[in-house]
């Protein structure tokens, strides 16, 4: 009897999860006022995997960087930046927003008390790929294959989000020109 109940519960849970995932996808499109363009569903199905929180970890030279991570930890992994710029913070907090410029990419921070935290990572140079293999110079068709169809199009940006964190690709003439990770929770 217990076994039957367990099977029924599993089936119901699975059905609930599937329908819940469906709701999420359609909601995210509706919120864009109908301007969302989705990458072909066929391509997404082909890939068999979508966008998950794990895709929001940026990997550069084998070092993992997370959004909202303490910049001092990032510096210990990446070493000193080529240039550092700072401006009075735009985030309603005391302190400075900073830009750490490296070869091919930049890390942006916001002040959280005494700590500078990563708010954005922008990759403009070739040779730095996302964990799923998209880099500057990749074709836009590869994006859907790797990340699925739950995408939002804003101008020339294709964005994938989980909560207040996003990964986005700036695409021009069918080619990725820039990759951007950002945190919108400040």
């Amino acid at each position, binding site marked *: 009897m217990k076994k039957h109940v367990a099977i029924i519960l599993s089936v119901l849970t699975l059905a609930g999860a599937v329908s819940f995932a469906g709701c999420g996808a359609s909601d995210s499109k509706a919120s864009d006022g109908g301007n969302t363009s989705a990458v072909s569903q066929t391509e997404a199905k082909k890939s068999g995997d979508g966008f998950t929180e794990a895709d929001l970890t940026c990997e550069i030279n084998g070092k993992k960087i997370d959004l909202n991570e303490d910049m001092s930890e990032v510096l210990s992994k990446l070493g000193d930046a080529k240039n550092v710029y700072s401006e009075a913070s735009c985030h309603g907090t005391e302190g400075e927003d900073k830009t750490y410029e490296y070869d091919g990419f930049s890390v942006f921070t916001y002040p959280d008390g005494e700590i500078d935290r990563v708010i954005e990572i922008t990759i403009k140079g070739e040779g730095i790929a996302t964990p799923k293999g998209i880099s500057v110079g990749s074709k836009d068709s590869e994006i859907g294959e790797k990340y699925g169809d739950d995408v939002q199009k804003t101008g020339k940006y294709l964005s994938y989000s989980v909560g207040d964190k996003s990964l986005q690709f700036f695409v021009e003439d069918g080619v990725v020109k820039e990759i951007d990770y*950002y945190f919108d929770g400040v």
Partner: protein
Amino acid sequence: MKARLLRFSKVLTLLLAVLFSTLLLQEYVLCSTDHNRERVKGFYLEDKDSVDVVLIGASEVYSDFAPGYAYERHGVTGYLFATEANSILTTKLQIQETLKHQSPKLILVELNSVLYANDKNQAKEANIRHLVDHLPLNANKLAFLGELSPEHPEEYLMPIIKYHDVWKNIPQDMELAGTIIANQSRGYNYLKGIKNETHVFKARQRNMNDDLVDRDAKKPLNPDSERSLRELLQFCKDKGLKNVVFTRFPHIVVRRTFDRGERANAVGDIVREYGFDYLNFERDMKKTGVDVSEDFYNLDHLNIYGQRKFTDYVTGLLMKNYGLSPSDLGDAEQREWREAADHYRAYYDYSDSLIKKGVRRELDEGVVTEPDFRKFLP
């Protein structure tokens, strides 16, 4: 009997002395004596019914608009009744206080406060205190505290309770205490609340202002923000206010801040639903003459070059479309506003000289006593 009366009067004198000292300490020493206090206190120094346009909002307001320049160019008097990271929760209180002390031709409310990515900024204690700590204790403030129901209302009523340990950092933390006293003895401040930074910002992210121009897509506001906005608009409607205009000041838009642009579209719809106008200068930034590459000191704030262009544009527009007209001032008030215009010109020239030398500084009313600044006065 005489001895008892004498003892009573001695005790009373002692108590009054303690009370007076406490209030004095609370007013000038054991308090937050920053630019917010200087600006808010300055608002109450303005002569009654002498201000044509009161601007309410957050840092965009005190960096982007220059009342001294608006007076010089258009003869219009204005005041920046704005505080750092201003919360939508205090906007009604600011309007109430404005109406109590002034009869402005126009109240311009910048609504950055409802566009944050989440609702936590709205209820952040510091953001509320930037304003409320510096307001006089009156019925409006008490009613606001009644609605807010803070955990420690006594700290709002007697801020010395909150700031009693500031003495540990005296004199460093006294910041603008001297400036505030100087303003009070003069009867007005010169810069009417301006705070800006001597810097020309070069954005390192891709600019998306042009993508916003024709974009009508909307993103929903956060639930608390929308509720607070609707309450504010209902208050203005119930009061029958015809002289309130809502606005979005210019910002550099990048992908990370693009959603705010779409939320601003939603704000426009909500504002119009209640019968008010919404002027979105971020979307129409080109018309203002503001240049993304030269006129900002960071993503969200105009530098003095942008400030001057924007002040000129927006004042002209308000005069053309919203009945703003040159002030009819008495001799003393005219003298005060000529001084304000002179000080703004000096502020602009001094800031310009620092930018050209590559010196970055935040400049507020505190600068007006500095010898290097005074060289630029006529």
